[in-house]
């Protein structure tokens, strides 16, 4: 059962806040939130309304400016001054003046118009307009007033200038011509408008100019957009269309984005960049879906004519640009294909080119290097290959130079010299050296063959045959004879060496030993036999005469029966070795009985 809240005693109670207050607090917070969101919504609506009114104003501004421009154009035409670049010059002049001085073109154009009608001359009108600006800046009067006074003064009514407070007396004005008055005024008010433009007020005026120009530009864009949509292109109808057309708002978004870029180019209009950023941000709050639906609803909208869109959300302009890009890409592709086709055709045509055929045929023949180069050069020229032609022509020049050098050298060939003439001298020197060596032999060399006095030494007598056809000592002493003797002696020595080798072979009794002196011999046990000099030594295994005390020999001779025939010592040797190896493989003892390991 719930406790009656009145029947209790609270101890150590603490105030933690009333529920009602908390509820109220929450309610207030909710209320605040709702108010804020309401405010935002309201602002959004308000901003949209502001934009709408701005767009209307911009259209009107453009309309007024357009009217003024047309009016000036008509004046020029009426005065027969609308020739050449006059109209453009006047417009540009006015635009520049506007930017420089901060005076609206709404004033400048009518002033110019007025002066043109009075003077009938563009240059004079420009001078007077400049003067009017200076006077207006100096006196504080409006450009319209001053231009009117100047117009009247030009036409003879100089009193109007006096009313401006320019500092000229009535007498001066009455007695002077307009040119004199103009000169005086130029002197008095020179540079006034420029100085005024540099002041703070002047800067503000210039910003105002920028803003108004922006308005006119927007208006122009809007007009252009809506004209492309609507059937009726009158300004009045368009202005009323703006009120209800959601499409105009979509275009307006694009215009603003474009305008943002344009405003940047206007001097002194940087501040408005923020304005337009804010506006575009505001407009960006429209849901993209809704905007897309709006844009879809625009039929036949192809962008804003010649106005280039630099950004924004104009889907159609983007599509147009994409299309242009695709066309450009297609064109590039087509050009490439055409170039490739042309190349192919040229190549095919080359097959029927007689000149080229002849060159190709000539190249296949047996020709010199120069002729080949010449033909290749002709071929390169026919093909139009400049690089190849240049390289070949250089090569041809080099070949021609070489040929010239060869021809020149051929014509300058001298009598052939005896190449062996020098041999006799060199051999003689060699023999002299040998002779010198021989005469000095004391055991380091062989004994001399010829004594210094030319007589033969005993060795020489022995070696150098005499008698019969043998040359005499004197003849031997001559270089030729010595050479012959030396050569003969060398042959003899070689023969002797061969005999020695053979004798050595016989002495050693190893007929199987061939010219390879390092071939090992094997003993009975199959072991190789070497002496202390590394030569064969099997003397221990040969039978020797007994009787010497202390030395006994072991007869280790083995009798080997060979089936078949032994043609030479090599076969015998081979048979021996094979037998030994077989014994080793079979594991038979290779050591005679009783021998120590």
């Amino acid at each position, binding site marked *: 059962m719930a406790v009656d809240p009145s*029947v209790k005693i*609270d*101890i150590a109670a603490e105030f933690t806040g009333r529920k009602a207050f908390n509820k109220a607090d929450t309610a207030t917070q909710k209320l605040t939130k709702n108010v804020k969101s309401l405010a935002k919504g309201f602002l959004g609506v308000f901003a949209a309304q502001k934009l709408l009114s701005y767009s209307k104003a911009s259209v009107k501004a453009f309309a007024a400016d357009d009217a003024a421009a047309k009016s000036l154009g008509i004046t020029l035409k009426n005065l027969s001054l609308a020739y050449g670049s006059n109209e453009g010059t006047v417009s540009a002049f006015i635009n520049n003046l506007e930017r420089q001085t901060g005076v609206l073109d709404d004033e400048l154009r009518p002033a110019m118009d007025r002066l043109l009608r009075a003077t009938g001359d563009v240059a004079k009108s420009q001078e007077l307009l400049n003067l009017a600006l200076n006077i207006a800046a100096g006196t504080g009067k409006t450009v319209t007033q001053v231009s009117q006074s100047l117009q009247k003064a030009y036409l003879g009514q100089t009193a109007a200038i006096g009313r401006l407070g320019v500092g000229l007396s009535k007498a001066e004005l009455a007695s002077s011509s307009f040119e004199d008055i103009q000169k005086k005024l130029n002197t008095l008010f020179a540079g006034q408008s420029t100085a005024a433009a540099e002041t703070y007020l002047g800067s503000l005026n210039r910003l105002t100019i920028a803003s108004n120009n922006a308005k006119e530009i927007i208006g122009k864009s809007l007009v252009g957009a809506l004209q492309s949509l609507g059937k009726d292109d009158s300004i009045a109808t368009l202005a009323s269309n703006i009120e209800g057309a959601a499409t105009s708002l979509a275009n307006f978004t694009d215009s603003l984005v474009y305008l943002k870029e344009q405003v940047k180019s206007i001097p002194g209009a940087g501040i408005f960049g923020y304005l337009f950023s804010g506006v575009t941000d505001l407009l960006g709050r429209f849901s993209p879906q809704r905007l897309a639906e709006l844009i879809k609803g625009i039929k036949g909208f192809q962008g804003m004519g010649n106005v280039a869109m630099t950004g924004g959300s104009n889907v159609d302009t983007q599509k147009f640009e994409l299309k242009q890009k695709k066309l450009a890409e297609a064109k590039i592709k087509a050009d490439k294909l055409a170039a490739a086709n042309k190349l192919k055709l040229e190549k095919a045509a080359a097959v029927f080119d007689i000149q080229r055929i002849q060159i190709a045929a000539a190249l296949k023949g047996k020709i010199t290097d120069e002729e080949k180069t010449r033909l290749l050069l002709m071929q390169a020229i026919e093909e139009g290959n400049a690089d190849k032609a240049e390289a070949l022509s250089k090569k041809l020049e080099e070949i021609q130079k070489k040929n010239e050098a060869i021809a020149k050298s051929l014509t300058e060939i001298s009598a052939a010299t005896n190449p062996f003439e020098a041999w006799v001298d060199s051999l003689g020197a060699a023999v002299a050296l040998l002779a010198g060596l021989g005469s000095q032999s004391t055991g380091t060399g062989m004994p001399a063959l010829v004594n210094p006095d030319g007589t033969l030494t005993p060795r020489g007598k022995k070696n150098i045959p005499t008698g019969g056809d043998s040359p005499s000592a004197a003849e031997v002493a001559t270089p030729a004879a010595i050479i012959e003797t030396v050569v003969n002696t060398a042959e003899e020595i070689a023969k002797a060496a061969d005999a020695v080798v053979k004798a050595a072979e016989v002495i050693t009794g190893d007929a199987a030993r061939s010219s390879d002196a390092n071939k090992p011999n094997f003993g009975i046990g199959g072991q190789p036999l070497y002496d202390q000099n590394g030569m064969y030594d099997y003397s221990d295994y040969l039978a020797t005469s007994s009787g010497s005390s202390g030395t006994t020999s072991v007869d280790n001779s083995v009798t080997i029966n060979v089936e078949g025939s032994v043609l030479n010592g090599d076969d015998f040797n081979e048979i021996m070795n094979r037998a030994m190896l077989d014994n080793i493989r079979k594991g038979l003892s290779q050591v005679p009985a009783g021998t120590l390991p």
Partner: protein
Amino acid sequence: MPVGIKGGIELRKALKKFTPDLAAETQKEMANLLKPIVSKARGFIPSKTPLSGWAKAKSYGVFPVFEGQTAKGGIGYKTTPSKVNKSGFKSLARIQNASASGAIYETAGRVNPNGREQGAAFIVQLPGHADFGKNKVGANKGQGRSRNPEAGSLFIQAINQHGTIVDANNQTGRGRRSRKMKGRVIFRAWKEDGGKTNAAVIKAIEISRDKFNKAVGYN
């Protein structure tokens, strides 16, 4: 209104979080302080019913039946924080009289010391009425429905014989004194305690606060 403190709830939370043993100890101490006063309060409830008819259960109506043991059992204490009341207060401990009969005994005569006015009795005269000829009482809000016009007064007199209403509110100074601190049982015990228990409880809270601060190194 009892003595208000500040930070007691947070202290209890901190105690439970960082020093649970201290929190339990504090709670136990508070209970020990409240037990005597609760016992005293229980003693103020009569074992027998002040009115014989009150102990009889009726087949009609929902007036609770008085039963001594039940009434005494309804008197107790709590050492846990309560819910926030209408005034925005939350208590760390409380003594309560939770039974219906005990609450009636506690508070009867608090608003109307001479008993509540009874509605006018009448006999239904309208023929065709379901209660035609029956005695009825036409009572407004705040009026009793007894046919005895002295019913309220007699009830309170009977209860007052066992114990009178005591005002335990010792609030001084400006402001209207609340009648909510009047009663025969717990409020009487509280009055008779003289605020000692309240002071002891707050003292215990302060001691636990100091112990906690010492334990966490806040000092």
